[in-house]
């Protein structure tokens, strides 16, 4: 289906169920869909499993969602940062579950979910604590561990510009996990700075084809 174009972030995140697995784009704050996360928090949904590279920065966006106790478990590569005090406190008090995944395996496991790959052998993490309990196999003289897809019920990401067919382009390193996460989620929700008519983006430069995008909301000026 062509994407729904919503008026505001609250409408864009409507209907996300308690217990959902939510893939959230961004690397630190670059590409983090702060307004969609804030709307998710306002929606009252809880018991979430969140997949993000980090575990929140400062007190807004993902950090605020964590602070309000909406997240049961976080799957990420790098929770500890200078401004991850919200997560740090929840983790130390045992109020959040953490699955730590090497960053490349995190990206590739979501890519596999979107690409219909059942599982893949990765050389990353072999012999480390993060590969404990995983199937190990030597292929062509190199050791690998078997990694499984990470699927989302929902992805919340930020892109730069969308067209009405759902095609997306991104800005610089804010691209990061967005193009992967939208392929791995049943419903992909995207905040952009601008929505243009289909045909206004050069077909050669589109990063995310519209087939992966379900809902778009343009957040500009004050709303952004």
């Amino acid at each position: 289906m062509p994407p729904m174009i919503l008026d505001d972030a609250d409408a864009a995140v409507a209907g996300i169920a308690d217990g959902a697995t939510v893939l959230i784009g961004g690397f630190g704050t670059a590409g983090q869909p702060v307004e969609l996360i804030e709307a998710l928090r306002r929606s009252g949904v809880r018991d979430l499993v969140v997949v993000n590279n980090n575990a929140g920065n400062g007190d807004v966006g993902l950090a605020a969602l964590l602070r309000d106790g909406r997240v049961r478990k976080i799957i990420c590569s790098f929770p500890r940062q200078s401004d991850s005090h919200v997560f740090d406190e929840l983790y130390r008090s045992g109020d959040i579950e953490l699955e730590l995944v090497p960053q490349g395996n995190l990206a590739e496991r979501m890519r596999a979910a979107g690409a219909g790959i059942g599982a893949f052998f990765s050389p990353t993490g072999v012999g480390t604590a993060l590969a404990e309990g995983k199937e190990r196999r030597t292929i062509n003289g190199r050791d690998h561990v078997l990694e499984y897809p990470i699927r989302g019920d929902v992805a919340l990401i930020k892109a730069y510009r969308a067209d009405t067919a759902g095609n997306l382009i991104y800005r610089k390193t804010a691209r990061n996990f967005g193009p992967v996460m939208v392929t791995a989620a049943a419903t992909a929700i995207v905040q952009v700075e601008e929505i243009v008519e289909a045909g206004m983006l050069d077909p050669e430069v589109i990063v995310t084809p519209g087939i992966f995008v379900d809902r778009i909301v343009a957040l500009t000026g004050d709303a952004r």
Partner: protein
Amino acid sequence: MIIQHTDRGPMDKREIAQLVAADIPPGAYVNLGIGQPTLVADYLPVGGGVTLHTENGMLGMGPQAYGDDVDQDLINAGKIPVTETPGASYFHHADSFAMMRGGHLDVCVLGAFQVSAVGDLANWHTGEVDAIPAVGGAMDLAIGAKDVFVMMSLFAKDGAPKLVPSCTYPLTGLACVSRIYTEFAVFEISPDEVVVTSTFGISFPELAAAVEVPLTPAR
């Protein structure tokens, strides 16, 4: 309920294509393979928002190109020059088949040598010993789309039914076909039964007598 069109003859290829097109939901992402199924494109409603995928790396494929519009860098999976529509996008082969294998396409329409009662598909190889095999994207398409529709004649040139209890031709995919459109009837394949939704130029009892697969009339 089954509709038996006994007051007319069997459908021609264009009528079959029209029927398939009518069953494609508005807004669907669709791959029409190569050959006969590409006729379906001619009957998709303008403005119905159906987006065509071609596995050689494009979404938003438009109609065949003619004359000055021909660009040898813009072709479909059958290597025929095509056009692009507003909202089109290009991507490489690994991304294109990831899109397919990942279940993002709604419908794929394929030809077939045989389809079995449980939806096994045989469409890539006749099994003849000296035939040069060629699979292309057939096996990827068979398992990739949410719904796989087959367009085929119900009978082979030797008169044998192509809807069979079990395929004798080499398989393309297991239990992957959801509907079969033929000149004489449209079949829906479910795990338990093969349901006939309509017949053309033949009655349901005649049809049931002509194939070896047990058929159920749509209720």
